[in-house]
């Protein structure tokens, strides 16, 4: 009997299929490597297994999960924990001011009773520090990597924090299955090696491990079998000894391209350089950019792709001044000062942010305001001047006209131009963001994740609108997206960012494997 069996797991988020008929088995003491592009459905699958609230809040899932042959359905992570499933998430879940020991035993501390706790309840039991030390040391021992139990978390190097988290899971006696979500992403090479050997050690003790990573070599090194996911399906489930990195890469990203759009892709190596980026660093949390050099040609659509967290989003956000950045950026020969959104906009650059609700929209204001606002502020459009320009009065009529024009042009579904932005659906909100950028009549446009979180129909509308805008008015566009397929459909050239740097630039016609290799080339 298998330790874990997942049968025909299906899940959709509001009609958007994210998992289709997933089947998976795992034996005691087996290490399973789970790979796939971002958005392939890995994390959703793990969330289902771990009973995360977000799954139930969005309508639950279909299919069965069997643990030791028994059907289980976890309502909360706590139930999953009780059943012996542990998970180490990508973000640390540690109390910064506590020692490793205190974190390992967080909310599971051994206690001593006293008279006072008899009266006021067991929360007034005194912690049994000695026992705590013993238990945490046992867990650290089990992990096989030496860390100092008395060290306070915020003084620790990142790797040790990661190990603390793992030790916490190991300190749970009932642990049978451990899920590690990109645990090596923050580790140095040495630490990663230590972790891999500790995974082998755990497996030897009979603990099954699900190991999610983008570093394929690690998978081959440590896993018994590899499960590759793509587009919400398992595309392959093989013993790791029977496969190699090129095959995995191909399976991860490989897809048949729609030939219809291929014809529209053009590559013009002689076009002058529109935007040149040198030695760019950006401090965007989770999307750090280090030392990026990149040239964008006049009139093209340049795609920037790469795995999540590798820094592709940091590039536009840094250049447009939303996050601290340094380096040199020149637009058509003129230097653009960094950390100043105003200067960028004045230089006729525009940006459609990936964070629609946080950055892209005034949710509580009307569509009119949303679309007209930047153009009004930057270019003094839609204003009536009184007293020789002393008073710049909002020209409501002009604002309504331009809004109406874009509503028709981009087919934005709304009750009127005065509807509040928060009342629109995701796809229509995205169109409003585009309209906002178009209204600036930019000479250079950054578009970040234009199709994130919108349905298929809206996706092609948005992408078409972008392409049309580029081809019609010749505006240079840099489009950032996690979906390689989408980039290959829309862009002329595609740059792949990995580890905060540009790993390479290829024409959009290049094969998927090539892109895939670039994506994982410098992953850390």
């Amino acid at each position, binding site marked *: 009997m298998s330790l874990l069996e997942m049968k025909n797991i299906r899940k959709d988020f509001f009609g958007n299929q994210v998992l289709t008929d997933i089947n998976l088995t795992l034996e005691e003491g087996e290490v399973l490597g789970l790979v796939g592009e971002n958005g392939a459905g890995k994390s959703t699958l793990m969330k289902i297994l771990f009973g995360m609230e977000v799954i139930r809040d969005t309508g639950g899932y279909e299919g069965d999960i069997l643990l030791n042959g028994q059907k289980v359905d976890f309502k909360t*992570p*706590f139930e999953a924990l009780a059943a012996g499933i542990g998970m180490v998430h990508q*973000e*640390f*879940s*540690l*109390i*910064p*001011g*506590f020692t490793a020991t*205190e974190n390992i035993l*967080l*909310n599971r*501390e051994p*206690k001593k009773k006293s008279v006072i*706790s008899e009266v006021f309840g*067991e*929360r*007034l*039991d*005194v*912690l049994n520090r000695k026992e705590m030390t013993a238990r945490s040391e046992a867990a650290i021992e089990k992990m096989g990597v030496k860390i100092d139990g008395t060290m306070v978390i*915020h003084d*620790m*190097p*990142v790797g040790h*924090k990661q190990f603390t988290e793992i030790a916490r899971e190991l300190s749970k006696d009932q642990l049978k299955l451990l899920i590690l979500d990109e645990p090596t992403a*923050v580790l*140095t090479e040495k630490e990663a090696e230590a972790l891999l050997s500790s995974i082998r050690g755990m497996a030897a003790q009979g603990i099954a491990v699900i190991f999610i990573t983008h570093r394929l070599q690690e998978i081959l090194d440590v896993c018994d079998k590899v499960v590759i996911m793509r587009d919400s399906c398992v595309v392959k489930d093989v013993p790791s000894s029977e496969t190699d990195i090129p095959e995995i890469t191909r399976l991860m990203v490989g897809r048949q391209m729609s030939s219809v759009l291929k014809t529209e892709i053009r590559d013009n190596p002689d076009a002058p350089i529109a935007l040149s980026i040198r*030695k760019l*660093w*950006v*401090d965007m*949390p*989770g999307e*750090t950019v*280090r*030392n990026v050099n990149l040239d964008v040609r006049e009139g093209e659509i340049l795609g920037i792709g790469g795995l999540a967290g590798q820094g592709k989003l940091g590039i536009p956000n840094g250049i447009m001044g939303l996050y*601290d950045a*340094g*380096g040199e950026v020149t637009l058509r020969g003129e230097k653009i000062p960094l950390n100043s959104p105003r200067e960028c906009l004045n230089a006729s650059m525009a940006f459609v942010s990936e964070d629609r609700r946080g950055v892209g929209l005034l949710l509580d204001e009307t569509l009119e305001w949303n679309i007209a606002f930047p153009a009004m502020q930057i270019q003094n459009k839609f204003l009536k001047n009184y007293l020789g320009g002393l008073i710049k009065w909002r020209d409501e009529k002009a604002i309504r006209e331009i809004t109406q024009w874009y509503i028709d042009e981009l087919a934005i579904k709304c009750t009127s131009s005065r509807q509040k932005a928060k009342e629109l659906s995701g796809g229509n909100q995205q169109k409003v963001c585009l309209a906002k950028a178009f209204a600036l009549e930019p000479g250079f446009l950054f578009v970040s994740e234009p199709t994130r979180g919108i349905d298929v129909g809206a996706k092609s509308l948005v992408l078409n609108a972008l392409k049309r805008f580029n081809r019609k008015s010749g505006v240079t566009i840099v489009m950032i997206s996690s979906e390689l397929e989408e980039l290959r459909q829309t862009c002329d050239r595609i740059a792949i960012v990995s*580890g*905060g*740097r540009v790993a390479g630039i290829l024409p959009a016609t290049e094969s998927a494997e090539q892109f895939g290799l670039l994506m994982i080339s*410098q992953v*850390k």
Partner: protein
Amino acid sequence: MSGKQNSAGKTVFSFLRNNTVPLMFILICAVCIPISGFSPSYLLNEIITRLGRNAFLILSLLIPIMAGMGLNFGMTLGAMAGEIALIFVSDWQIWGIPGVVLAMIVSIPFSVLLGWVCGKILNMAKGREMITSYIISFFINGIYQLIVLYLMGSVIPIAHGSIKLPRGYGIRNTVSLLNMRQCIDNLLAIRIEGVKIPVLTLLIIALMCILIVWFRRTKLGQDMRAVGQDIHVARDAGINVERTRIISIIISTVLAGFGMILYLQNIGNLSTYSAHSQVGMFCIAALLVGGASVDRASIGNVFLGAILFHTMFIVAPKAGAVITGDPMIGEYFRVFVSYGVITLALIMYEMKKRRQKASIGAQLALAQKDDDRHEPGIGAQPSPARKEVERHE
């Protein structure tokens, strides 16, 4: 060599920066004490009296800080509960130490109720606990007035005319506590060279300190520290965050009630409608003067703060009078200093949060420079501070 000096300079600088407020106060006191011309024994006497009077109240602030709820301006609620208990006890004519003990017992249900309400409301206003608890203290003050001024004597039985307003209901502006005045302070009190030391009071305070130290070592104390440092992690670990926060406020309120009773037994009379109104502000100022901040406070801060703050309080009017010839200047000066110190502490706390955020950019720029040098190396590790800061935003 220079590096060594540099690092020594840095430690001195960071020491200065972390202890600005206490150092400032030591300076103020050092200037004002000689000017005021008070004798050392007088000063010592006053300081010890005030320490005994206030330390318990200030101690009540520690637990919400531990639970990450900031300075509990709602401690006024506990003070009001204590006052209501004292009104009852003095109406029942229970005197002396039994009176104090009874008042403490009677104050508990009021404190728990008020603390629970306060905690509930603060849970609805996460992220702006301080301003909310501050407004709660005003709101409950209104309810307190309603009860004491209109309901006592008309709905709630009050027997003795001596504490009632002449109109037949409502409590007088001052209630005499002469019969329990300093009963605790005087028991076991000893005099050393003219300085009276209220041993029992100090013992009670010491006991309270031990209790707080013990509390930190309990499961509940550990949970509170966890909740205070990272509410999300604590919740993920299965700690009932809301309940823990409410309990911390309830404990603080109950302790503030006890503290207020001890405070008033020393004063010897109760200004029914104003005794509590400033108590929160002065206690918070004293704690901050001791070097505490919005997110960190220790028992040491309490005592250092109480001593420094009250030294300033005693000498400022006299010193002001000597310098400017107007005694009111000193009065206003110490009020200004109390508010100023809270303002300063709040500002420093917010700025520290921002500074932490800003430091990461600098680290990246530095890594970039390293990068250039070692090109084409794989490059710097992600900065270790990274993830913490993300979470703390």
